[in-house]
């Protein structure tokens, strides 16, 4: 059986995928992973997960432009330039409240 090994380097850090090993059961996998991924004290914890237990998700549909959900979906440079230029001009009396309608 193939076990995927995840290790946590220090408290506060997330588990990261570190490698894989073939072992007959979790007892052997543990004995071996302890040494392969921890003999230098480089891990505070390990997760050993049979590869078959991992559910892979690898494809997404992105047919319609849904970029509004992301930072790169916004381009405010041009609008900001216009607004700054506007702010630099003296305002005519009474105009401010009706601007932008």
């Amino acid at each position, binding site marked *: *059986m193939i076990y995927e090994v995840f290790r946590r380097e220090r408290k506060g850090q997330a588990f990261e995928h*570190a*490698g*894989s*090993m*073939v072992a*007959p*059961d979790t007892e*052997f996998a543990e004995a071996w992973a302890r*040494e*392969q991924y921890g*003999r*230098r004290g480089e891990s505070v914890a390990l997760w050993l997960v049979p590869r078959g237990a991992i559910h892979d998700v*690898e494809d997404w549909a992105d047919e319609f432009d849904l970029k509004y959900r992301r930072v790169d979906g916004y381009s405010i440079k041009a609008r900001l330039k216009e607004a700054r230029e506007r702010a630099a001009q003296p305002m005519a009396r009474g105009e401010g409240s009706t601007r932008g309608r």
Partner: protein
Amino acid sequence: MPDEQAFLEYVQGGGQVETGDWMPDDYRAKLIKFIEMHGNSELMGVLPEREWILRVPTLQRKLALTAKVQDEVGHAQLIYRVVEDLGKPRERCLADLVDGKAKFHNVFHYPTKTWGDVGVIAWLVDAAAIISQKALLKCSYAPYARIMKKICWEESFHILHGRDVILTMMNGTDEQRELVQEAVNRWWGPLMQFHGNPIPKETDPMYIWRIKSQGNEEARQQFLDGYVPQVWELGLTVPDPKLRRREDGTWEYGEPDWDELRHVVTGHGPKTDERLAFRRRFLDQEQWVRDAVLAA
């Protein structure tokens, strides 16, 4: 439809490939062969050093040398796992190795004759290997690049250990200094051949596919630049009267014996047969253990 040209442009542009991705058959085949050779080399590299684990003259050095060789076995495990996920099972890699059908690096076909060799291997041979390994951190095949991170990190103590062993001997008796010089004399030729003959990068399929990111000559120059000064500053000599640093910073050297390299890596090194037979003996002898363990 997957397109080899598009894949080529992708990897040449720095694109990374993961295990399940489509890849051209040639890329996969070259990758397997290259990575398998690396695994074989780590495994065969254990044998010359293993003898000396049993002869180590202090407790500290015994621990350090055992740990160094342990790392190499660990690297072999990581590397063969990558090859296995690419489609070639470890048992087949090992079978091909002991049958003489697969290659491993030239340096591991030579004898280790003295404690001087133990120092020189950890100091210079490992240094030559690490230069190549650092270049592999940028391999287009990501699973391999990732294990190279762990490998390079672990190798860092090997060079320090090697340097410490050498310096201790150089500060010791005349006989100990002589051991080091004699070992350097014997290992220099294989070291100069180690990175391979200077094929231009652009014609090297390994580089074209971005499996390797460094040409052979580039690696050798890096080795010379880093380590010849270290050798010379200890008062040691190198058996190459042509070796010198040019004005432009590159190193000039006597032409390595490329015939010797070819002869050795095709399985005709001084220790090739003996070491492969030793491996085969234990592989065969302990097959029952693998059957008992992996038959779960």
